[in-house]
Every structure is written in structure tokens, then in C-alpha cells.
């Protein structure tokens, strides 16, 4: 090619980023890497090759982390963590700040190594991944600085095991490592098997900068190493980003261990194009949504939902746009897309596309892919049958599926008809419509007229089977902290009911039924159990709930969805009213507490009045637990809105039969959830007496449903039920383990005390910690400007 030929053709010429520094770095290690443990690079051991997806050539050999390696890393982390946490926030801030500067100083080297190892275009690592990673360290250096004032009453979780994916190797490291370290935790991190190099490079840079030994440990390896990390006895927390399938396994593996857990999993995020959208902008949005990083993005806008009236023009323009996408090797600075991670992934993508086409989808593809390397072209599957796997499952490749909708309501219905709930992108020039859709879609992140925009100050994470926990911003910090108040709570003593003596004294039988859908309902099984006082005196009978009673209660709770749409003021009024009605019957409830537990009169009265106070507290919080407005570096806002999770099951604590019941149920109701509560197994009569308070308090039917019986049996049923979105379990340690393990069906959020009996009369037993557990943050990005 000559100047003259380019003058005539006006073609692009490949423009390749210089990779000599990256190759030099690999060469200084002779292409072989060990782990980074306790501040030192270990000798390279048995392992595997990491390849260059653009060419299929081997880049380096890395070491498979063994049990011994993982043990050593945790040992180093445990040893280092206390001193690290004990540093003043300012000292930790300086170290985090130094890491941010290291990233900036070595930005190009990191970007090139990342592109080589992952196959993604250098533009993305250079312009997006690495700058954003540095921003995460800067942002979290700030949280370290402010920790003492902003997170008073919270301690770091401790030692954190982190397992990250291959799609954003360095950015995910930053998302995981920066908040963990900033808030005083130590880390054992495993980068993905196929993309370990930038983590090792980062470790080396941190080491050279004098970062304290043991605080950050990197162990390479495959899924087996990851499993060792997730299950390690010294891990106080596990943070995982990856597939929903592996997320489920980690949930099972950590069940009952008391490990804090955050899961950032898959998605099938809707990309909604309304008929008043800027169509060209939306088409470009698709490029950023599904052809960014070859579509290997958990929050990729992979389900195009286009309003019928504009579907043809939208797709015509999209097809034209696809023709100008350039695909090439990762270091070429003239491309839009690089290689997918490996041949197996490419074949998996191709298989899903082929099956969708066979099922009737219309295939739109464009672009020329290089002959070597694992490339797959940009693809749209138009009019994909809703029943085919490509329409419902995460493809994790450059493939969008498309459907049409008629009305905004139908857009919401289609968007939410998914197991996932990570992100959503909404395109409309009408702010009323866009924000209405944003409020209704079930997702952790909603982008209005933009997509795949991220910032360290704005929490990222999903709902439903896309996982739980947030990364970034204040909301993300709480996932690396634990409340100090509950740390030393004693193990809950099992209540052994006294042997019944004689019969109930009431002339009129008062067998308590269940409270389901606002009405009292008989047990499905027709069984009841006798409730005794401390000396065995018979106090009455309650229904013995079974799985069908749980089914009915959940059904009623799901039907009461309008509770979440009531105004906060309205919810507050009802909670106050419940408090008022309870107060009017304080003596009766106090007597019942004495009869059940044998407490003295003053303590019983104190529990009733504490319960009234608690109802008032959550009534107060109902219109005061607000979101924040993030100010990301753009012209626009990100609205962090705490939203109800949905239907929550609650295994109420044995102790404090009235206060424990209200302390767990009220924060959920105050924030708009609907509840299926299993009353204190030994002392359920305070909860069943409460039916009459509920019936006089205007609480809509189905918002609070109460079932009595075996906490273990009913807890299991709630944990298994895929229509239950959250489960609060305050029973035995065994029950906590069991429900966590059983919660994987729909990855429900579990909040448990692991059998440690908290003091429900303590001030820490109410307030924001509970409200945060009752909600999940939805971040709505609203760029503006005309």
C-alpha cells in the first residue's frame, strides 16, 4: 500500500499498539509466574498456559494454586489483616492512593498486557478499563480516609476471598480489591484462569511500591483453586463475580459458615427502545451494549425490546451500522471488536445462535473476522422465539436477541420476565416515560439513554438471579463491613417446651389459625400443636404449618405487590396505627408474654412498650430511608434508590416473642416488602394475638402473613420456594446453614444471625442495618443536557 493507493481507497490501515514493553515484562519472568503471597512472588510451579485469544499463541505459563498455596495465602492475609485494619484511615488512604498512582503511571503497560491476555481491543483497556480501575482506587482511598466518621460502629469483615472473571480482569480486580483494602480487609484474590497476567503485574507493582506484605495476595489457578478459596475456613467473606451457576455453588459451599457473601452474576439485560427515542443514538447504544468487549459483559444489553412502530427503521439502521464494525486483533487501534476469550466460548456462542436460527429467529450478521484466533462476528437475532434458549439464557458473546413490544406496560412485562435482574437500558426522549420504566424494571442498574456506563462512586450489582451486593459507592462499602454490635452475641439457647400439664383453662376454645391474605386460615394439614408456659401449663393450641400453608402464604404475599407502590407516608401511617393499636392492648400482650416465657411483669411490660416504640421507629423510617443522588463524572445524575426486595420469609427468633417478631417484620414492611413470618416456635401466641392488631390497623391483606409450627420445617419450605425473594432466619445455626444452602434456587438474599441471639432490646436491633437488608439499591443513571 502506498500513499496514492490510500488516497484512492480512503481505507483504514491497521495501526498496531507497541507491545514491546509488555513482551519485555513477560520475558523478565521467562514467561513463567508463581503466585503473590505475603508480599513475595513464589516460584512458578505446575500449572497451565495462558494464551493470546487473537492469535491462539501462548503468552505465559502460570501456576495452578494448590491447597498449600491457598492456605499460605490465607495465613499471610490473617497475619496482616489486623495491623492493616488498625492503621488510621488516613494511612490506608495513602496506600490506596499510591496504588491508584501506580496504575496511572503504568497504565499503558497494564492496558497492553490486558489486551494481549484477554483479546479485547486496546481502545477498551486503554480508554475504559484501566482508567476506571484507577478511579476505583482513588474513590476508595477516600472511603479509607473517611471510614472512621462515615462508618462508625462498623468493623472490616476481615479476610476476604475473591474470585474474578476473565471479561474485565483488571477492572474486576480493582472493583474487588479497592473497597476491601480501603475498609481494612486483607485479600486473597484469584484471577480467572485464562486472564491472570494483569493481576500478577499489579501485585508486582504494588510490591515494588512497598505495599504491606500479606494484605494483598494473588493465587492463580482454575475453578478448583477458586473453590478452595471460597470454602476456606479463614475467609470471613467471599466476593465472586462470574456465572450464576458457579455463584450457586459458592452459595452452597459457604452456607452456614457465617461468611459474608456477595455475588455478581449473569444477566440478560433488556435494552428498551421506545418509539420516541433518538433512533440513531439507540443504534449506537446497541454497539456499546452488546459489542463492547465482544458482548462478554455481565450487564450487556442483550435483549433488544423495540416498540413495534419503530422496529423496522431501528433494525434497518442497526443492520447498516453493523456493516461498519471492524473486527481485528486486540492491539489494532482501528477496531471495534476483538476475539472472544477462547475457541470453546466461540463454539458455545455459535451453537446458541445456530439453534436460535433453527428455532425461527432471523439472523443478522456483519463484519469480517480474521482467519486465526477465536473471533465471532457481531450478531442480532431478530424476532427470536421467546421459548428458545438464546432468548432467555446469557450468551456472553456479541449476540443480541430482539423482540418487539406494543406499550410501555408490555415493555416492562417483557423486561422483567427473566430470572436475571442485573441492568436495563431505556431509550426515550420523554423523561416521564423513561423514569416510569426505570422505576418499574427489575434491575440493579438502569441506564437512561446510555448503557454500560460505570463509575466507582455508583454501586454496581444485580437483583434476582443476577446476585446480591453492590460494588462501588457508599452502598458497596457496607459489603466489606460488619456491624460491631452483633459480633459477640451468644449462641441462642434452644427452648425446650415444658411437658404439657392438664388442659387449657379457657371455656371457649381459642386455637389460633394462620393469618394469610388478611384473613385467618386453618392449617392445610388439619394439625395443631399445644403451646405451654414455662411450667408446662397449657396456654392454647396453634396450627401446625406445612409446605402448602407456606405456598398459600407466599401466594397471598405475591398478590399484595401494590404495597410496594403505596406512598411512604401511607406505609408510615399504617405502622404508627399498628403501634397505636398494640399500645391500647399493652396489658393483654404483657400478660401473654409472662404466661409464655415466665418473665416478670415489668420485663413483659417493657417488651410491649419496646415493641410499640419499634413500630413507631419503622413508621418513622418508612418515609426517611431515602436514596442518594450520586454525582458521577458526567453531566448527569445517578439516583441510588433503595427498593423493596419483594416477598420475604422471616423465621422469627424464639426469644422476645413479640419484640423479636416485630423487629424482624417491621423493617421489611416499612420498606415495601411483603412478609411471610414464621412465629416464634416455642412462644407463637404473641404473634397470633397480633392478628387482631393487624385486623384493626388497615394493613392490606397479604402484606404480612403469619404461619406457626416448626421453624425448621417451615424455614426449609421458605428457602426452597422460588417465589420468595429474601429470607431472614433467626433460629439455630443449623437452620441458618440449611436455608442458605437451600436458597440457591432463585439465589434469594439470606439475612441470618447464624444462631447467635441478638439482644432485641438493644438500640442496634433496629434501624439502618435492618433497612439495608430489607432493600436493594437500584442505581438509575440519568444523563442530561440539550
Amino acid at each position, binding site marked *: 500500500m502506498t*500513499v496514492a*493507493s*490510500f*488516497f484512492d481507497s*480512503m481505507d*483504514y490501515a491497521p495501526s498496531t499498539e507497541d507491545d514491546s514493553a509488555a513482551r519485555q515484562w513477560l520475558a523478565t519472568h521467562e514467561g513463567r509466574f508463581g503466585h503473590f503471597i505475603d508480599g513475595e512472588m513464589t516460584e512458578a510451579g505446575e500449572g497451565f498456559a495462558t494464551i493470546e485469544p487473537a492469535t491462539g499463541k501462548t503468552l505465559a505459563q502460570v501456576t495452578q494454586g494448590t491447597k498449600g498455596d491457598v492456605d499460605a495465602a490465607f495465613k499471610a492475609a490473617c497475619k496482616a489483616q489486623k495491623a492493616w485494619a488498625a492503621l488510621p484511615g488516613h494511612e490506608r488512604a495513602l496506600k490506596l492512593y499510591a496504588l491508584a498512582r501506580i496504575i496511572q503511571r503504568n497504565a499503558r503497560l497494564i492496558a497492553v498486557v490486558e489486551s494481549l491476555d484477554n483479546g479485547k481491543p486496546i481502545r477498551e483497556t486503554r*480508554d475504559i478499563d484501566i482508567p476506571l480501575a484507577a478511579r476505583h482506587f482513588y474513590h476508595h482511598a477516600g472511603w479509607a480516609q473517611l471510614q472512621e466518621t462515615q462508618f462508625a460502629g462498623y468493623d472490616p469483615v476481615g479476610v476476604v476471598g475473591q474470585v474474578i472473571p476473565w471479561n474485565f480482569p483488571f477492572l474486576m480486580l480493582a472493583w474487588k480489591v479497592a473497597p476491601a483494602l480501603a475498609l481494612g480487609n486483607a485479600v486473597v484474590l484469584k484471577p480467572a484462569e485464562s486472564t491472570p497476567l494483569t493481576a500478577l503485574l499489579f501485585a508486582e507493582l504494588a510490591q515494588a511500591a512497598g505495599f504491606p506484605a500479606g494484605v494483598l495476595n494473588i493465587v492463580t489457578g482454575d475453578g478448583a483453586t477458586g473453590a478452595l478459596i471460597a470454602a476456606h475456613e479463614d475467609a470471613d467473606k467471599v466476593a465472586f463475580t462470574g456465572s450464576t451457576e458457579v455463584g450457586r455453588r459458592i452459595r452452597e459451599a459457604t452456607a452456614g459458615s457465617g461468611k459474608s457473601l456477595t455475588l455478581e452474576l449473569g444477566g440478560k439485560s433488556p435494552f428498551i427502545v421506545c418509539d420516541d427515542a433518538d433512533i440513531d443514538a439507540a443504534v449506537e447504544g446497541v454497539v456499546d451494549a452488546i459489542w463492547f468487549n465482544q458482548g462478554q459483559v455481565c450487564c450487556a444489553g442483550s435483549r433488544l425490546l423495540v416498540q413495534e412502530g419503530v422496529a423496522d427503521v431501528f433494525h434497518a439502521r442497526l443492520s447498516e451500522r453493523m456493516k461498519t464494525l*471492524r473486527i481485528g486483533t486486540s492491539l489494532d487501534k*482501528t*477496531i471495534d471488536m476483538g476475539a472472544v476469550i477462547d475457541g470453546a466460548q466461540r463454539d458455545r456462542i455459535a451453537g446458541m445462535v445456530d439453534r436460535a436460527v433453527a428455532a425461527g429467529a432471523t439472523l443478522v450478521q456483519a463484519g469480517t473476522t480474521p482467519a486465526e484466533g477465536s473471533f465471532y462476528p457481531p450478531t442480532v437475532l431478530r424476532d427470536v422465539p421467546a421459548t428458545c434458549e438464546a432468548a432467555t439464557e446469557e450468551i456472553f458473546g456479541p449476540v443480541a436477541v430482539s423482540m418487539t413490544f406494543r406499550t410501555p406496560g408490555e415493555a416492562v412485562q417483557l423486561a422483567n420476565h427473566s430470572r436475571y435482574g442485573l441492568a436495563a437500558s431505556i431509550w426515550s426522549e420523554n423523561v416521564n416515560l423513561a423514569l416510569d420504566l426505570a422505576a418499574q424494571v427489575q434491575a440493579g442498574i438502569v441506564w437512561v439513554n446510555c448503557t454500560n456506563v460505570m463509575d466507582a462512586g455508583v454501586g454496581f450489582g444485580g437483583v434476582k438471579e443476577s446476585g446480591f451486593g453492590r460494588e462501588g459507592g457508599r452502598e458497596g462499602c457496607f459489603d466489606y463491613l460488619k456491624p460491631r454490635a452483633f459480633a459477640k452475641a451468644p449462641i441462642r439457647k434452644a427452648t425446650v417446651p415444658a411437658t404439657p400439664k392438664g388442659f387449657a383453662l379457657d371455656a371457649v376454645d381459642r386455637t389460633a389459625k394462620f393469618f394469610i391474605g388478611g384473613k385467618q386460615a386453618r392449617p392445610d394439614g388439619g394439625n395443631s400443636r399445644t403451646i405451654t408456659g414455662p411450667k408446662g401449663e397449657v396456654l392454647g393450641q396453634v396450627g401446625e404449618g406445612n409446605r402448602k400453608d407456606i405456598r398459600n402464604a407466599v401466594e397471598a404475599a405475591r398478590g399484595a405487590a401494590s404495597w410496594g407502590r403505596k406512598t411512604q407516608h401511607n406505609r408510615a401511617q399504617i405502622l404508627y396505627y399498628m403501634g397505636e393499636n398494640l399500645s391500647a392492648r399493652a396489658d393483654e400482650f404483657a400478660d401473654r408474654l409472662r404466661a409464655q416465657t415466665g418473665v416478670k411483669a415489668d420485663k413483659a411490660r417493657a417488651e410491649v412498650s419496646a415493641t410499640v416504640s419499634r413500630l413507631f421507629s419503622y413508621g418513622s423510617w418508612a418515609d426517611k430511608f431515602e436514596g442518594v443522588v450520586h454525582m458521577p463524572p458526567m453531566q448527569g445524575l445517578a439516583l441510588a434508590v433503595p427498593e423493596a426486595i419483594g416477598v420475604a420469609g422471616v423465621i422469627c427468633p424464639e426469644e422476645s416473642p413479640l419484640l423479636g417478631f416485630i423487629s424482624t417484620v417491621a423493617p421489611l414492611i416499612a420498606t415495601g416488602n411483603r412478609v411471610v413470618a414464621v412465629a416464634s416456635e416455642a412462644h407463637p401466641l404473641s404473634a397470633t394475638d397480633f392478628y387482631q392488631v393487624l385486623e384493626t390497623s388497615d394493613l392490606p391483606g397479604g402484606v404480612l402473613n403469619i404461619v406457626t409450627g416448626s421453624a425448621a420445617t417451615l424455614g426449609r419450605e421458605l428457602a426452597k420456594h422460588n417465589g420468595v425473594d429474601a429470607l431472614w432466619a433467626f433460629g439455630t445455626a443449623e437452620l441458618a446453614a440449611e436455608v442458605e444452602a437451600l436458597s440457591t434456587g432463585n439465589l434469594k438474599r439470606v439475612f441470618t444471625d447464624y444462631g447467635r441471639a441478638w439482644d432485641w432490646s438493644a438500640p442496634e436491633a433496629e434501624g439502618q442495618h435492618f433497612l439495608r437488608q430489607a432493600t436493594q439499591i437500584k442505581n438509575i443513571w440519568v444523563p442530561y443536557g440539550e
Partner: protein
Amino acid sequence: MNTQVKTAPIEVSQVEHRNTGMPLDLSVVHAVQVNTQASQRRAASLPGRRAVKADAQSAWLLKAVTCIDLTTLNGDDTEGRVRRLCAKAAQPVRQDLLDALGMGDRGITTGAVCVYHRFVAAAVDALAGTGIPVAAVSTGFPAGLSPHSTKLAEIEASVADGAQEIDIVITREHVLTGNWQALYDEMRDYRAACGDAHVKAILATGDLKTLRNVAKASMVCMMAGADFIKTSTGKESVNATLPVSLTMVRAIRQYREMTGHKVGYKPAGGVSKAKDVLTYFALMKEELGHDWLQPDMFRIGASSLLGDIERQLEHRVTGAYSAAQRHPIG
């Protein structure tokens, strides 16, 4: 050296493919939606997606030279100043540099010379035999607030003096008040007054403020028969920007989808660096395609851009950074 064949072959195709316009369709105008931030994001990410280096860069810069409307529009312009500019237009890049780049025999000239009406005749005379057309700014440039009949007379006078291209300015009031019919009628009259001369509609996007206004004004002017739509007079506080250009080229694309007519695009003012013009080419190539990379469909209104291109080309040839005085003054 062949100094005759310049933009002539393209002139022929222009005659064949002039935009004949269409009746004003207000439904299209009212349906226009432009999201500003999305436009800005697209514009911002483009340079990172399309690096143009080495031989390709030299070729693209030489192509840019052929697309430049080399311009002088100042109150102190004189005939002598205009003739100097014309000489530069005919030989915009040093012959030794062209030879070194293997482009010595391509007859590289600028796309046109752009002046006020007063200097049209002098420019036509100075450019005689070069094939370089003379463009005249017109219709009460830059504010466009002269009487309508005066504006039409001004166009006719410039055409009579030999201008082959007329750069008109629209009445911004029509856009700012949403009086699309008035804008359409005005543009129709300008087009008619131009006769065979090509008409470029200057929207003065810096005055229109919003991208939505820019898109709507673009669409109305094309419906009324504009051969080119052009961003700016160079006198507004904000001239050509990438988001404005993105908006206008997308309007051109939509108009082509509607009518089959190809309308040219001319960013003016604000394109002063060689690096910028590469991004503009990438924008045209990506959003409109190869046809809009030639001087019959793409022009750049610029006065200082050429100097930067000359310096870049010398750097490419010699490996040493250049300086302005090493290239003939324009």
C-alpha cells in the same frame, strides 16, 4: 505538471446528482429526536476507535487538502490578499513534499476558494485554468438579516461574476421560532437564484444552540434543495463540533433514505488541526460511507488547517517536526 484536472471529474457527477428537494414534510421535522449526551459519547469515542497513521494518514491529509474551501472572510480583505490565497489554493502543498509522497502527479489543489462577493471576480480571474471553483458567501453573510430581495440579488450578482458555489446563511429566527415553512421558502428561493451554481446552506449551528434545532434545520434545508449543509459562518462563538457534525450527517443519511438524494456536508470553523480532520473523515466514512470522503460531497471551511497539514506532511517525509515558515504563505 497537469494543473488542469482538479476537481473537474467530480463536477460532472455533481451536476448529475443535484438534490432537487422535496415538498416540506413537517411530520418528518417534528419527529426529529436527538439525544445530546448520546451524540457526545459517540463523537468522543470515535477517535479512539479509528487511528489513522503512516501512509494512510498522509493520504487522508492530502485528501483533506482537496476538500478544503480555502477561505478569507475578513473586513480587511483586498484583491491582493485574495489573489495570494488563490495562488496557495492552486499549489497548497510543496511540490517536493508531494513528490516524496508519490503524489506529485495528482494535481492536488484545494476544493475551492471562498470569499465575499466583492472578490469573486478577482478570484475567478486568479484561478483561471486551475479548475478550482470560487465559492461566495452570500445572503447578508454572516447574520443573514438583509432584505430578502437584496439577498437574492446578491446571489445573482455572485453567480454573474463567476461563482460556482454559493454559501448562503439562513435566517436563524425561523429556526428559533419553529417557523419551518419560512425557512423552507427562503431556502427554496436561494436555491432558485443560484441556478447552476451549487448552494451550501450555512445553519450557523452556534446560534441554533441545540442539536434538535440543528437536525430540524438540516432537514428543512435539504427538503428545500440545499446541495450542501454547512455548520457555521466562522463568526459564531461556537463553530463546527463533532456532535453537531454527527447530527448533521445523520440528517443527511436520513434524507438520502427518504429521497435517494445525496447532500454534501461542510464543517466550517473549528477544524484547524490535522488530527481533527482525520476524525472528521472517520466520522464521514463511518456514518455516511466512502462517497462522502470526496470533495463533491465533503468540504471543510478552514483557513489555518492547511498550514497544520503541510507541517504534518513534512514531518512524515523528513521525520523532523516542521514550522510554518517552511511552507509558502496563503
